[in-house]
């Protein structure tokens, strides 16, 4: 195993669910809580990465926090941006451009009712001419077409997809912060009989729409040793960027996710079997299955059978989205930051009823846009 020389030393969520708070208040909650968790302060921060605050997200955040960072990143990549920020932050810290980086995100989309099924219209893009006329839901209909292609190619079924949502709910019932903590268990039949949105994906296959967010604090592993928390080392990272239009990829299931996952594993000198805890983006049930295959837990087309055997549920052989995931815990529009928060907490052993025993290596694998961008981070207990 190899490793970077950077560690995550603080993590936090902002308020989740329905908050009626502004994005800047939620962002600042996340940042200050994560710094408090780390034992560092705003005065120590010389790097920030975030998006979705404003057109000039990082300058707005620097202004609101009253700091002058020497390094920032506000790449807009969809929900996988935060795994990529970790990679960029590692590079910034290792090169000396920054010493303490905070990666953060927050959204008030549920309170503000700002989410539209049709997506955001950008008049100057090819999609406005060649896709919008046909009325695809964005991003939902693309994932639906990917699921249909997966069914056609491998014979998978809606019941098998539903098992992803059932497993996520079982985990959420162990997480007091989960939006569905008190909603009771979900059955495959509940998911399959839920309101159809864009075939074959029904409401039960789709992530929550909630407020929420979080933050993580990164610094050198040398500095991390002097701080209170058990440091969590960044072991490796990888990413892949592809299409933005719905007809550009010749094979809709050739997403690029495997390139990201395999690059991260190679950089860390790890194999899939070394991973103890998995946090994958579950915008939709199909996203999670495709991610499991990309990470090498099973071959192409095998994830449906793999999930259906209960492996992903609490007590199963593959601890998966232990927070309850985007499906049952929280999905604030971009979920990638919360994959990292949960991965770190598992490695620190702080997860109570949902704690995975002896967790030493975790993966956070983000998916952005319409299977457009993929970013993978491997984390490990620092020794």
């Amino acid at each position: 195993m190899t490793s970077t020389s950077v560690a995550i030393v603080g993590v936090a969520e902002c308020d989740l669910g329905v908050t009626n708070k502004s994005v800047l208040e939620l962002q600042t909650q996340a940042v200050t809580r994560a710094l408090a968790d780390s034992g560092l302060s705003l005065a120590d921060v010389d790097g920030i990465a975030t998006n979705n605050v404003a057109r000039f997200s990082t300058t707005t955040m620097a202004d609101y926090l009253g700091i002058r960072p020497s390094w920032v990143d506000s790449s807009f990549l969809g929900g996988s941006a935060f795994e990529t920020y970790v990679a960029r932050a590692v590079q910034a810290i290792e090169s000396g451009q920054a010493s303490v980086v905070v990666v953060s995100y927050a959204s008030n989309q549920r309170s503000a009712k700002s989410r539209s099924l049709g997506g955001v219209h950008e008049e100057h893009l090819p999609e406005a001419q060649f896709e919008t006329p046909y009325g695809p839901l964005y991003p939902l209909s693309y994932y639906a077409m990917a699921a249909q292609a997966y069914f056609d190619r491998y014979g998978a079924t809606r019941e098998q997809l539903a098992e992803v949502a059932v497993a996520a709910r079982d985990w959420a019932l162990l997480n007091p912060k989960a939006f569905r903590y008190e909603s009771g268990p979900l059955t495959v039949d509940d998911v399959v009989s839920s309101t159809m949105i864009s075939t074959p994906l029904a409401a039960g296959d789709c992530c929550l729409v909630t407020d929420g967010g979080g933050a993580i604090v990164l610094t050198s592993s040398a500095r991390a040793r002097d701080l209170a928390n058990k440091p969590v080392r960044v072991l490796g990272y990888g990413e892949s960027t592809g299409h933005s239009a719905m007809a550009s990829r010749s094979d809709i299931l050739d997403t690029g996710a495997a390139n990201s996952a395999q690059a991260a594993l190679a950089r860390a000198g790890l194999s899939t079997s070394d991973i103890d805890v998995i946090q994958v983006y579950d915008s939709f049930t199909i996203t999670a299955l495709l991610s499991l295959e990309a990470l090498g837990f099973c071959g192409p087309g095998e994830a449906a059978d793999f999930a259906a055997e209960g492996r992903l549920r609490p007590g199963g052989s593959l601890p998966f989205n232990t927070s309850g995931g985007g499906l049952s815990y929280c999905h604030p529009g971009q979920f990638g930051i919360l994959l990292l928060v949960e991965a770190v907490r598992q490695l620190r052993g702080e997860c109570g009823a949902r704690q995975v025993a002896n967790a030493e290596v975790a993966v956070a694998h983000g998916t952005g846009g319409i299977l457009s961008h993929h970013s993978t981070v491997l984390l490990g207990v620092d020794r």
Partner: protein
Amino acid sequence: MSVSLKQVGAGEGYLPPSDDLTLPWWDATREHRLLLQTCAACRSVQHYPRYVCLGCGSTGHLGWEESSGRGVIDTFTVVHRAARPDLEVPYVVARIRLAEGPVILSNVIDVRPDDVESGALVVLEWRDLSDGRALPVFVVESEDAA
């Protein structure tokens, strides 16, 4: 599932923009001709139209050829929640793999959504827009026409 056939995938309420590069493509739709961009240097065919050839990277050899209008459904989704108020659900959004190679996003119309299948042969149809242009859409090829 009861469907008023000609309404499936209706998009009359949305007039797509065009630009300098795509104007010939949109003008051809007035004559119900579906154009594809073709590279004279490497023979690649692509959709949507771009300033660069994805096959060889050249910018000076792209022209237009007319599609045969034949293709197969690569994959599809039946949409039950309308993306816009002018769309009547359910409607079929599909990726159509054209005989010339490129994939085009479109609607499959005049079909019961339950009857749509990936791999089905489809042929080009047109939905006229209020400004004289038209949208290429597709119908499942009937057996007697095949």
